[in-house]
């Protein structure tokens, strides 16, 4: 049953292939362009929220179906552990970095691969930030390791409902968000037309 163990050349190739799919998806969604990513934060371009939320819902549903059919062992699929303190603070910093710099780590690599110099400067900054983090984290080690630590903790456990019910809920929230994004853009389009 999936997932599988890989070694040697096959290990290298399967990960290169997954990465290539990831790179194509980001590039074709327009995320090699900092202006499109920044546009999400000025509500001039809502591609980021559409692509991210669609990807999360599709991957979530396929994973749950594959597990329900007995093809995929969910116990061997990686789930990020929950550290509310460092996760929320780090997330806020990442969001600030995206508005200041126009990329996140993955999209800056795509931008650099398509020869965008702003992407290259962002990557240079990433290395500085990462090394700086490694240097200063001993000063707040306890916060990093313990603040809001919940271990492997998923939305279904938090809500006290099944994974299937949680998936329906997440899908409904996503569809509502898409409806909101489409409605907002239509309204703005009409307003701009009226102004012309």
């Amino acid at each position, binding site marked *: 049953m999936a997932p599988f163990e890989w070694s040697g050349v096959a290990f290298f190739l399967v990960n290169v292939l997954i990465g290539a799919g990831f790179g194509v998806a980001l590039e074709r969604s327009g995320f090699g362009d*900092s202006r499109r990513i920044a546009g999400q934060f000025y509500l001039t371009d809502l591609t980021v929220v559409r692509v991210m939320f669609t990807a999360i819902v599709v991957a979530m549903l396929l994973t749950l179906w594959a597990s329900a059919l007995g093809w995929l062992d969910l116990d061997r699929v990686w789930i990020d552990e929950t550290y509310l303190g460092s996760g929320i603070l780090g997330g806020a910093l990442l969001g600030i970095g995206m508005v200041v710099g126009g990329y996140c780590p993955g999209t800056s690599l795509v931008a650099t691969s398509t020869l965008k110099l702003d992407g290259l400067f962002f990557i240079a900054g990433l290395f500085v930030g990462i090394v700086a983090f490694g240097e200063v984290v001993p000063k707040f080690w306890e916060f990093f390791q313990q603040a809001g630590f919940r271990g492997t903790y998923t939305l279904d456990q938090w809500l006290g409902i099944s994974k299937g019910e949680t998936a329906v809920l*997440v899908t409904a929230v996503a569809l509502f968000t898409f409806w909101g994004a489409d409605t907002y853009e239509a309204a703005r389009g009409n307003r701009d037309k009226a102004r012309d």
Partner: protein
Amino acid sequence: MRPVSSPENRLWNPYLGGAFLGFVLFAAFFLTGHGLGASGGFARIAAAVMNVVIPDHVRLSPYLSHYSTAPLQHWIIPLLVGVALGGFTSGKLAGRCRVETLRGPNISVGARWTLAFAGGIIAGFGARLARGCTSGQALTGGATLAVGSWAFMLAAFAGGYAVAWLFRKAWN
């Protein structure tokens, strides 16, 4: 799936692009048991370089030392190689591979480079603090319903919207 591309820029419809990205993420879970990632790979590359230049310093650091043995022997390194190859190939086929600086209409090239570098520092620090970035936390943890990853994602959007007004001249 046949992606819709508009003739002038060959970008995919965001819902189809998202579905394709979701399928790739599922393929990662199914084939390997891990999701996607990016910032962890950059951290490993940084650790590999520091290992050569200042090995004693790496060994004594509580954070860096867990990267000190064979930092590049990890799935995220070939994954990043793939991201670069996929990004380049896709951009090349769409005619988007050319040396340029993407910026808002009212900012100089030099200022854009400075802000890109500064944003990279903040994002790099934040991603390591959060143990992942948009790929390893928001997408991977989002799809596996991890509470911390959803909190991360909401915090990232909140952080971005909180400062967007201050940086409006960089983009608008």
